[in-house]
């Protein structure tokens, strides 16, 4: 019998499934429509469509947009917040800043807890963790009674300086549970995120409380549906940091599983790149409305300590660091009042979609430009599922061309150049700006539009190779299949190195490590699969952001602390290009972090036995426009599904498959490796490294 690892990625439009049998190497992939609002039917449909039986499932992991969507669409619980007396507007005020200095019509998005449900309690802890006002338990009980009468479904507790002393929050939680009943949803900021900065901590715990009832019921329902289908085993859920947690753990920290979809995509890109021999990859996923870019160095994705749902709703959980920019197939090109050609940020999305969809949008989009330039096949767009009208694309671009006094072809290629410049700039931001040389990386392209743009972007940044996986549409599910179980624990340290209490630091790490071990035990991870990673967040005292430094072990003496400082200083210099004098800037340890990891076996993807003549995969030719020649060139078209391992194709060429189109411009050379990845040498020994520099734009405009 097969023993399948199954990963399901639930997106807004499609539910993707990838299943893998380690014994045979068999890999199944399935795409089915998602089934909002519950999404659960889509999971069962995917399992059935894949022909998997319940007893074949060894492990079931899944990623879902449900948490993210609940926040974006404001469909979370009716939530209350308990805070220190006097601090009722920490959440509402946020950091009071705006994304654009001149746009005073910009409005922040409403906080997840409206002011009326923020209740104050007398208590106060100072910055060192001393109690300067005892907790007034009557205030807490009064708040609980108000919440009860208002039918509040979930409560967050966030007191000032609670990260230094959590007792008041813990006692508050006990009282709330007493008053509201044991089944009530209550979470505290010191539990969820014991980190300095009251707004960011409060925002995180409020989001968590807001999601608790939603995710709890979702997991109940999914668990029940899977049991009914016949699967009794553990259910794992992916989180923003590129790991999974058990469903049980996710119920307590649902904010952690927001933003998990993009994380799956990055891990998937890492896996695909690794198979083709690249340990350093930049993942590039471009769909209908936006493009996500992320950097993976030495098979480790870059983590950011925070991410934002909206400008004013930060969530401070480690998240795969990605840059999202508003450039997708539906991005609209237009000419502004000053006569400048612009691409985005408006998008026609999937509905009404590009002008060629003939669903009411008359403005030219990036897809229309590709279609006009011959890069997309009007006969088999999306495998022929969608009928498109090229003459509408041409008319839309022609209207733009008239305003610009340019040819239609130059206008269409100009639209793409501008979009490419925006994406190049974003790529520059995550690579060069962070001290990485793009020449050491491969670009892994996914999404319906990614493989159309990848070579151009790679060339701008002197990235030598582009990799397009065989099924770019399920990269995220593939990533989920691959990720480890991972819990991230954190404790504040906030000590300058010169005052560092090494013994206290050791105790902090001991406590976190014990907690981590307990978690792994509770999740039944066998010893040989347990891994504990130690790290610290460090910065120059006085600065706000910090860097995470991996530790082999907890420093036990001054020499080991010195080496930690040296490590920090060299990373800092690498990233920012200079060093601060030691007498000016002392290093501060901000947080101690411990990751509890349950290691998953690497997924060995099958190699292809497919053979055949490359010419047999050639299905014809059509006129395609390339910037390199500034004209339409008769270009061979290949069918991806018939390309065998070892095939080589010199650009110009177009490779078509049902879910995307790969553009191989003149001067580039594509080859197919044994995993059926298309690997493109972007300059194919021709042009020796053009003067490379990022061309770009501020993201999003």
């Amino acid at each position, binding site marked *: 019998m097969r023993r399948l690892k199954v990963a399901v990625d639930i997106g807004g439009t499609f539910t993707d499934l990838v299943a893998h049998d380690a014994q045979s190497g068999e890999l199944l992939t399935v795409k089915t429509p998602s089934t909002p609002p519950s999404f659960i039917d889509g999971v069962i449909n995917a399992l059935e469509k894949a022909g998997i039986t319940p007893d074949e499932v060894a492990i079931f992991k899944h990623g879902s947009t449900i948490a993210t969507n609940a926040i974006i669409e404001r469909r979370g619980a009716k939530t209350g917040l308990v805070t220190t007396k*006097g*601090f*009722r*507007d*920490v959440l*509402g*005020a*946020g*950091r*009071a*800043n705006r*994304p*654009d*200095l*001149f*746009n*005073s*019509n910009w*409005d*922040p998005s*409403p*906080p997840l807890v409206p*002011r009326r449900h923020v209740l104050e309690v007398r208590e106060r802890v100072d910055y060192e963790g001393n109690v300067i006002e005892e907790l007034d338990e009557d205030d807490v009980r009064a708040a609980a*009674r108000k919440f009860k009468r*208002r039918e509040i479904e979930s409560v967050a507790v966030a007191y*000032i*300086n609670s990260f230094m002393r959590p007792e008041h929050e813990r006692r508050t939680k006990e009282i709330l549970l007493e008053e509201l009943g044991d089944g009530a949803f209550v979470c505290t900021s010191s539990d969820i995120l014991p980190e300095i900065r*009251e*707004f960011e901590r409060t925002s995180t715990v409020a989001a968590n409380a807001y999601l608790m009832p939603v995710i709890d019921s979702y997991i109940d329902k999914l668990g029940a549906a899977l049991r009914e289908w016949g699967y009794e085993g553990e259910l794992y859920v992916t989180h923003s940091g590129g790991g999974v947690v058990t469903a049980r753990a996710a119920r307590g920290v649902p904010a952690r599983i927001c933003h998990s979809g993009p994380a799956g995509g990055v891990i998937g890109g890492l896996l695909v790149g690794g198979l083709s021999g690249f340990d350093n990859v930049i993942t590039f996923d471009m769909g209908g409305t936006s493009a996500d870019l992320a950097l993976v160095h030495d098979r480790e994705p870059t983590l950011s300590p925070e991410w934002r749902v909206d400008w004013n709703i930060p969530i401070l959980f480690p998240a795969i660091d990605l840059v999202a920019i508003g450039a997708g197939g539906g991005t609209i090109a237009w000419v*502004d009042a*000053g*006569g*400048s050609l612009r691409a985005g940020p408006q998008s026609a999305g999937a509905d009404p979609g590009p002008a060629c969809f003939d669903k009411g949008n008359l403005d030219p989009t990036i897809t229309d430009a590709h279609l006009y330039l011959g890069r997309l096949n009007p006969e088999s767009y999306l495998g022929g599922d969608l009928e498109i009208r090229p003459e509408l694309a041409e008319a839309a671009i022609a209207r733009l061309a008239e*305003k*610009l006094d340019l040819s239609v072809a130059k206008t269409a290629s*100009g639209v793409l150049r*501008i979009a490419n*410049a925006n994406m190049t*700039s974003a790529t520059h931001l995550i690579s060069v*700006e962070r001290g990485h040389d793009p020449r050491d990386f491969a670009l892994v392209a996914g999404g319906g539009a990614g493989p159309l743009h990848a070579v151009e972007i790679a060339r701008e940044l002197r990235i030598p190779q582009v990799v397009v996986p065989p099924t770019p549409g399920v990269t995220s599910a593939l990533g989920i299949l691959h990720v480890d179980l991972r819990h991230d624990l954190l404790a504040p340290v*906030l000590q300058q190195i010169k005052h560092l209490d090494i013994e206290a630091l050791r105790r902090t790490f001991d406590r976190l490590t014990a907690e981590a071990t307990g978690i792994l035990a509770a999740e039944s991870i066998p010893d040989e699969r347990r891994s504990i990673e130690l790290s610290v967040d460090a910065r*120059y005292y*006085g*600065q*706000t*952001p910090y860097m995470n430094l991996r530790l082999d072990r907890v420093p036990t003496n001054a020499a080991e602390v010195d080496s930690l400082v040296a490590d920090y200083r060299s990373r800092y210099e690498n990233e*920012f290009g*200079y060093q*601060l004098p030691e*007498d*000016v*800037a002392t290093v501060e340890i901000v947080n101690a972090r411990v990751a509890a990891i349950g290691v998953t076996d690497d997924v060995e993807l099958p190699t292809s036995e497919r053979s055949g003549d490359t010419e047999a995969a050639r299905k014809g030719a059509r006129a395609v426009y390339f910037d390199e020649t500034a004209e339409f060139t008769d270009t061979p078209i290949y069918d991806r599904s018939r390309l065998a391992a070892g095939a080589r194709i010199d650009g110009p060429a177009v490779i078509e498959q049902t879910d995307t189109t790969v553009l191989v411009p003149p001067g580039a050379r594509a080859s197919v490796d044994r995993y059926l990845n298309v690997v493109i040498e972007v300059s194919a020994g021709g042009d020796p490294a053009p003067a*490379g*520099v*990022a*061309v*770009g*734009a*501020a993201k999003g*405009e």
Partner: protein
Amino acid sequence: MQGATATASSATSGAGALRNDPITFEVLRNAFKSICNEASALIERVSYAPTITEGHDYSVSILTPDGRLVSHGQRDQAPHMGTFESSVQNLVREVEEFAPNEAYIYNDPYTGGTHQNDVKIIRPIFWEGELVAFAIALCHWPDVGGPMYGTFNPRATECYAEGLRMPPLKLYEDDRPVKPIWDLIAMNIRVPKERVAEIHAQHRAGVLVEERLLGYVEKFGLEMVKDGFEDTMDHSERRFREWVGRLPDGTYEFEDWGDRDLGKEDEPPIRVHCTMTIDGDQVTMDWTGCDPAPIASWGFARPALQSASYDGTMHCFPELAPLNHGVVRAIEIISTKGTCVDVVEPTPVTGYCSGAYEKVDAVTMACWGQALQRVDPHRVHAATVNLQNFCTGGTHPKTGAKFVSYMWLEGGQGARAYADGNSFYMMIFIGGASNQPNETLERWYPMVYTSTEAVVDSCGDGEYRGGFGIWRSFRATGDTELVVLGDRERVGPFGLAGGSNGGPNMVVLNPGTDAEENLGMFTTKARLRSGDQLEFGSNGGGGYGRPWERRVESVLEDVIDGLLSLEKARGTYGVAIDEVDADALVYEVDENDTRSLREALAKDDRPRGTAPFEVHPLGEQLFSRPDGLGTRAGQATASGNGRG
């Protein structure tokens, strides 16, 4: 539309006027923005003072060799970049010859800046021996010496009693610091060691701009990049003139007031007045009607007048961002030397921002607002919270280290002609700035914060109300000296179209005790003892339209959220609300009572004037509720700012 000036004579002829092809143009225009954003992000990341790392008080820009602004960072601070043209133009006059890998430090307000704290480091950028651009990186240093912690000096009558003033000085040669210059600076400012981080950050930001810009020169060639500068400016000018051309020709006047000139015996208020003339696509802003320069630190020199005029303009046309010389050259600004908006040395200027800058900015927006209200009322704003510069300093009782802290308060945004103002809103001209977390401040300075909480009833009232101000109060835990330089305690942020002015800025020591003292907006070296309580509160924003025409449901929402008292709901908005069960949030509106209350209010015998909560006479006379734009229908969604 009449012809533009010589430089923009092709302005209306469309894309044909571009030097580069439209694609290269757009790529380069975006590139200039992105370079500045990257350099700004670097400063935020590696600077030291919370003012900068948490508060974002810094800017980065690219200028041409003759000192024309090309681009700036998206979250930078408007007062800074609006003076950069003057800075570079003066630098070029002062320095005979530039060389690669140099950087100049410069903060003189009269020739090229704002106030002494805004310290610029300017880097000439060369390509093959030719000067092709300047990069400026500015940080607000928390202290540049002088008698007061933080350098703000409300009692100064001359700039010599404020802080260190620097002409352009070469601080870096061959990318190495010029030690005697740095030593001179270090000897004249507080906590100079901390500023080393800022200097490094500012210098490094210039290097980054250079590397990135030269990358484009390498790729496109110098001529295309230079053409890109010109195209970028022409493009903005075309778009701006296109807008101006759509507005009705005419003369638009407005005025606003500073609370008082502390330097004069009777402390008179200070008038700021503008006459804006729109003639075709030409605009002139005439500030000659402003009062003479005050004796105390409130006014500013001509570079900052330009900056404030540009900022007010850009808020009405935000799609033109980033600001560049194309907009600058399309605005003619007239002023008289020796007035409060065109002061000369040695009139003090540390308080320029809370003083003249806020008023010029607000008056500029009100002038544009008159022209825009029939064309696009979405661009009309009542006045927003006024900055209070709030500096504390002393010796930390636990560490024995000297400290200086500089902070400010967010407050209420002015109402828009279609929506409420947001609460807890950063001052209009520093939208990229942030507040500073209490928990961070407490670790640095000897104080325990006691509130981050709305000032109830502080909104300017109207059909659309202004946003609410905030209390950020603290108890001192060590002896501390306090300097406050603010404004709008006596003159509220103005309302429009019959909306009332927003609530006052406030600094009160030990309220509710025998030792209560209103320190007010011009506090010099107040000594706080350990245990003293300081209440620090901010303006509400001005309202728009008549309060008794506000939707009853919106008034009720504010009451439920605890932002508006039942008394104010009744007395000002004419909404009779019974608190049936506050714990369960059950409130009832008495409709009959409300109807008669509103009928009585409609007789409108409210006090007219500039004080908080009075009805601003000019704002009432010159602005009306826009018709025909469906603002009523749109109110349900548009007014929900979600911040209470």
